[in-house]
């Protein structure tokens, strides 16, 4: 099945296996949010491998929860077929029967979908890429610290808008910091930020 939405939403090419129209309708037609969700979905490509690993370690409950997560995300994106497969996998893991065939099917569908989405996604919106100086970085660091302290989601918005400033402030810790912020692990992100700032002697005010 090929879902067509190119007329209504020219920013996203049609993707096989993705009922984008319905998912977008649920989001009230909010395309930017939908595109962000799709970009994040790409990070789930390794999930079947993680599930297999957890099973090999005897962590059936963890594997089941990962399948539950995949089902939920697939449902919210409109990946109907993948959602069905993930549901079957979750149930299969709950019953303790052999998950190998259905896990293989999930892996196959997920890989295909991730590739198709990569092709279809428009380029990411440009962030502020001009080189900041230390004068500008310190107040941004303080702002970031304040938002992380109150677990406020504006921390993500700030990082998205000023990636170069935080690259400069965080140095070699940037990737670790970025991962924590985008994963909403704000207390962890705050720790990394404080360490990096004290190392570089930038006050977080």
């Amino acid at each position, binding site marked *: 099945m090929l879902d067509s939405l190119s007329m209504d939403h020219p920013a996203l090419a049609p993707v096989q296996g993705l009922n984008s129209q319905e998912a977008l309708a*649920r989001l009230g037609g909010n395309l930017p949010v939908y595109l962000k969700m799709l970009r994040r979905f790409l990070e789930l490509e390794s999930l079947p491998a993680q599930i297999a690993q957890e099973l090999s370690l005897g962590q059936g409950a963890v594997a089941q929860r990962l399948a539950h997560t995949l089902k939920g*995300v697939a449902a919210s994106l409109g990946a109907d077929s993948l959602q069905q497969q993930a549901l079957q996998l979750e149930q299969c893991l709950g019953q303790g029967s052999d998950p190998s065939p259905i896990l293989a099917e999930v892996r196959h569908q997920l890989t295909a979908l991730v590739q198709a989405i990569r092709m279809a996604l428009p380029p990411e919106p440009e962030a502020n890429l001009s080189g900041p100086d230390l004068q500008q970085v310190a107040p941004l660091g303080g702002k970031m610290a304040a938002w992380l302290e109150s*677990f406020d989601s504006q921390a993500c918005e700030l990082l998205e808008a000023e990636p170069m400033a935080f690259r400069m402030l965080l140095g070699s810790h940037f990737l670790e910091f970025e991962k924590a912020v985008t994963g909403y692990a704000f207390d962890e992100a705050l720790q990394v930020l404080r360490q990096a700032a004290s190392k570089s002697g930038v006050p977080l005010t």
Partner: protein
Amino acid sequence: MSRLLIVDDEPANIQALNGILREQGYAISVATSGLQALKVLNSIRPDLILLDVVMPELDGFETSERLKHSAEWRDIPIIFLTAKAAPRDIVRGFELGAVDYVAKPFHAHELLARVKTHLAMDRLRRENERLVRAESELARHRSVAEMVAGVAHELNTPLGIINTAAGLLTKWAGEPALEALKVTPEGKMLLDDLLDAGKLITRNASRAHKLVQDFKKVSVHQITDIREQADLAEVVRDTVHLFQVSAPRQSLQIEVINGLGEQPASWVGYPGSLSQVLLNLLSNAQAYGYPDGQPGKVEVRLDRDGEGYCLSVRDFGKGISAEHLPRVFDPFFTTGRARGGSGLGMSIVHTIVTAHMQGTIRLQSSPGEGTTVLIGLPQIVPES
């Protein structure tokens, strides 16, 4: 704007919810587990929680149970948000204190409508609680005031008799028929003692009579005053002037600020009672606002407040301790009994403002920063 807390272990879900809700202007805080949600709640207080059910360690149901057991958090409305939407799960969610349940994948418009509705309901619930508290506080104050006035009324008659009898004693002690007693030193001493005792009783009976009159004033039924149209700014200005001339040695520097400017402050109410209120507040500021004898500043301010007026009296003195603040309007509560305070002034002020003039009165005070008494008055006070 309201702050919502999203609790979900899946960043993709948080991202979707955050995107939709941020666009509506909500402030969003985020936790990725039930345990983290409890930690987040130590630093922020959200107006509503969107809580995922299936999470590792502490799931949504257990998290909700913990929140509902905490006096501090139990009132925050919780909406469960999960793909696990079997009827028994929905029922369990409501049993655990959720106000609503939204199935994933959620529909943005539906979610927003539910969030908005529950925020509005919660605001109404809190406002209702505040009104119930204020009403019961008012009822308590009135019943104490009525009791005090009742006791005062009962004391009035015997006090009158004591006063009359003492007067007779004094009068009789001066009668010529008793002159003969003065010829012996013992007789003269006895007569003088009798006179002194009579005067002592008279003096104290009249002091008791004055107190009893004050006690009666704490009840609204004892207020006699004429309702008339007046310029509120003028009433305030004249009363402050009266206070200044009647207490020439007072140490307060009083500034009157008319926030209405040139606009007329037309008011239908009880100017006499309002003057009494303002005089009581000014004497209080003088007696208790600043450490003994020290000069101080008082700001009397009149402003529009919706349909009515707001009259505030502010001092910049030592303030009232948090422990005393809730008792200030109680009859007989005073920190100045040694200096002759009866503890009735603020109680009378409260009765006049709330019962006689159908207004509101509240106090703001921090130790070391001073006290502000805020009085809200309707533009037209209903006839008593």
